């Protein structure tokens, strides 16, 4: 089965982020940020090195003000809405966005086939 339910939007407080390991690899491969009723999902890989996950602890993807996504390796800041790095090691590059389907019940779904594309 390629579609995986990530849970409900209400599982993530507004302005917070959460990592997920839908492939059961033991390491989160994607994360979701909820902001203003919207959810944004990205592959948990910093474009600086292409193999480094972002958080210093699980789910710690945002700065203290919850304004930007942060890579804890070298402090790069990314725009939450589009994943663009606006300051730091990979300035001008972007996180790989993952499509999240939110149904009428506010359940979040991702397609593992899409995530697989980011492994290459």
């Amino acid at each position, binding site marked *: 089965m390629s579609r995986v339910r990530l849970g409900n939007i209400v599982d993530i407080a507004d302005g917070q982020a959460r990592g997920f390991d839908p492939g059961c690899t033991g390491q989160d491969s994607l994360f979701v940020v909820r902001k203003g009723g919207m959810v944004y999902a990205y592959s948990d890989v910093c474009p600086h090195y292409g193999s480094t*996950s972002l*958080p*210093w*602890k699980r789910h*710690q993807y945002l700065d*203290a003000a919850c304004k930007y996504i942060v890579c804890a*390796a*070298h*402090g790069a800041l990314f725009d939450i809405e589009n994943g663009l790095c606006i300051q730091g*090691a990979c300035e001008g590059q972007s996180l790989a966005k993952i499509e999240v389907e939110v149904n009428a019940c506010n359940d979040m779904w991702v397609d593992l086939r899409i995530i697989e594309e980011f492994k290459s």
Partner: protein
Amino acid sequence: MNIIGPDKLIFAVDDVTACKQFALDYGLTQLDDVNFVALDGTGIEIHSKDNASLPEALSTGSMLRKTLYGVADNATVDAIKAELSKDREVKTLDDGSIETMDDMGFVLGFQVTIRQALDLPAETINAPGAPPQRGVNETGVSKEFVAKPRSLSHVVYFVPDAVKAEAFFAERLGFVTTDRFKHMGPFMRPAGTNDHHTLFFLNTPPHMQGVEHFTFHMSGPTEVAQAGNALVEKGYQSFWGPGRHIFGSNWFWYFKSPFGCNVEYDADMDLHDDQWVAREAMPGADNSQVFLLHYEEKWAPGGPPPSKAS
């Protein structure tokens, strides 16, 4: 210039609470509201990014505000002031230390070192063919052992011009280049220590200027592994390691951190004197570490008992 090494790194961070907890979990001891130190008194200062009393932040967003070097004596402080005052402002602060800026724009301080002499055994090993380092009935490890960082080891900077950065530290402050990654940057030690490096530069685009990592010396590879394992068990995420570098020979384990840079444990670094001839290598995985291990959760062989039928 009898500069011994970094006494202190002063940070102004985005998440003060997270950074202070990281410092404690890393193994440093909290001295007061802002100072977190190793066994020899060297350490880090953690302030809020809003602290207006600190030197200005780099435009790149680096959270390091100042590198404070320890030197042998007041005469060395005076000599550094005389040298650097030739072409830049050098302030004398109320505590007697001096403050200035290097050619890359990093703020530097110099003071008579606060580094205390340690009298502690290194990690010991027993090996066939060599006299035992641990006596009979003396065990090597303990589950209860708590690893403690001993001394601030080195800091690594991203710089837009590693040649210019190296020249400043060599020509103005007497640092020696011990080894070099071609087209990337030099490992450097000041005159007052034999440690392979207290400083390493990585050549990067200007928008990356800042700190790649900083690290403290541990007693040996077992302590690096036990300290790193303890960090992982507290939920912190490994960046690189454990492994062993080639230049410097130091064991390493790097972790991501809320300081906006990686933080390493290291141990067993090579010592060099002025007879050493610097080596050069191309950067890359094969020249960066002699081996690299990979963390897994604790595990034991065994499995279920045999079934009655077998």
